[in-house]
């Protein structure tokens, strides 16, 4: 159920497009209205989520500390694992965002010989994760060809490397195939590792099925069931110049691709995918580990009414002296 529900959701989305485009001829809805609406939801949604996080106070100094904190001068600090300065925090964040450093530490526990529980390094998730994210990024950057009249400088540079195997025509872009393989690994790992399967929810499977659907339709369109890409570019250029057109001769496959991408964009801010912005907002990652150096004031603190000892003594000094309780300050005679 946890797997089948999101799977059939994606199938339903695909059938919806086929019915809407091939059946009801609602090209304008699927080609223009929905992509705009999805982009709008994406931008507004991400900004909403980020500002909501930014409004939440962090009462405690809770950076994850995986190394020696800054302490006495003769104790060597681990500046990256336990940063005490903004530069250190930026360095650690950059390593995390660009190289998935914290995932690289991933370990796996295993029961050996029936009773021995041992931990070992487990890099497969890190590898599949980083490959998935970078290939997705490159695929996204390559799509700029559909959205600019004169392509930005990087496009051909990227494509030269991406297609350097020169397999077939159009040249095979490795990133597309690798993206699909990495997404398939991330999905299969949820199927076959019992512990991971146990904690996987429909919200984990849905984006994977969606992305696999997007990659598959994209690959089909580029290499197998070709579409008229001049017409596709007319449509996409119409979108980015706010002069939408629906050219003839674009097959349903393109609309499926576009609709799944729109679904991904619209779904993005309301799902786990928003970790794109969330990583920068995590207190465990973006706070400095300087709790010994500076006092971290809880922003929730409200002024507490206190009665200090000095005030107490001032109030009850006579009574205290009568009861022969020692006082700190003798009254001026």
């Amino acid at each position, binding site marked *: 159920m946890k797997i089948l529900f999101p799977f059939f959701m994606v199938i339903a989305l695909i059938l919806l497009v086929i019915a809407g485009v091939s059946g009801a001829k609602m090209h304008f809805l699927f080609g223009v209205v929905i992509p705009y609406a999805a982009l709008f939801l994406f931008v507004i949604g991400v900004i909403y989520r*980020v*500002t909501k996080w930014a409004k939440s106070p962090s009462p405690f100094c809770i950076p994850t500390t995986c190394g020696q904190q800054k302490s006495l001068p003769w104790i060597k600090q681990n500046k990256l694992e336990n940063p005490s300065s903004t530069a250190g925090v930026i360095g650690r964040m950059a390593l995390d965002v660009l190289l998935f450093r914290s995932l690289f530490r991933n370990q796996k526990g295993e029961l050996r010989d029936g009773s021995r529980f041992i931990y070992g390094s487990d890099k497969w998730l890190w590898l599949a994760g980083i490959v998935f994210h970078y290939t997705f990024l490159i695929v996204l950057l390559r799509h700029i*060809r559909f959205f600019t009249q004169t392509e930005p400088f990087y496009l051909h540079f990227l494509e030269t490397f991406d297609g350097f195997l020169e397999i077939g025509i159009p040249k095979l872009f490795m990133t597309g195939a690798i993206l699909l393989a990495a997404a398939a690994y991330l999905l299969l790992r949820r199927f076959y590792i019992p512990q991971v399967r146990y904690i996987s929810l429909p919200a984990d499977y849905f984006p994977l099925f969606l992305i696999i659907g997007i990659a598959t339709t994209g690959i089909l369109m580029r290499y197998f069931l070709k579409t*008229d890409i001049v017409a596709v570019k007319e449509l996409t250029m119409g979108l980015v110049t706010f002069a939408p057109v629906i050219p003839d001769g674009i097959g349903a496959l393109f609309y499926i691709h576009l609709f799944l991408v729109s679904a991904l964009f619209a779904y993005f801010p309301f799902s786990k995918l928003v970790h794109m912005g969330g990583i920068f907002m995590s207190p465990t990652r973006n706070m400095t580990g300087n709790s010994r150096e500076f006092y971290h004031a809880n922003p929730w603190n409200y002024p507490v009414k206190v009665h200090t000892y000095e005030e107490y003594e001032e109030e009850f000094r006579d009574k205290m002296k009568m009861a022969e309780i020692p006082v700190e300050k003798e009254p001026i005679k």
Partner: protein
Amino acid sequence: MYNSGKVIMGIIIFLLFVAFPFYYNIGRVIATPDPSLDTPVINELVEKKCVEPREFMRVEHMTMLNDWKDSAIRDGRRAYINTEGKLFEKSLQNTCMRCHSNKERFCNECHTYVAVKPYCWTCHIEPKEKKL
């Protein structure tokens, strides 16, 4: 909002990325490609037909040229019989470019539009067109 300066900076960077296609095209002329069939050879044709139907050629010409290249160069099979049973020589320069002698106004028209750089001319000799 806490750390509002940094958060707003982050949101602005996010918006600059997302909106890139929207502002990048401002002030650039968006020209829809219009490949020209106006060449002396095509004008003389009674029946203006390519080796295969137009719709097929539009999306599959690259695959076809690649198949032609492979079978002609590797196997020496230079004869191509199209779906109507007509015989053509598998040759970019002698068959395709004989009619479509206007690379600038025919091939490049769409290829430039969709930012595609085919590698035909790394082996073939690029036709020298008279500049008008």
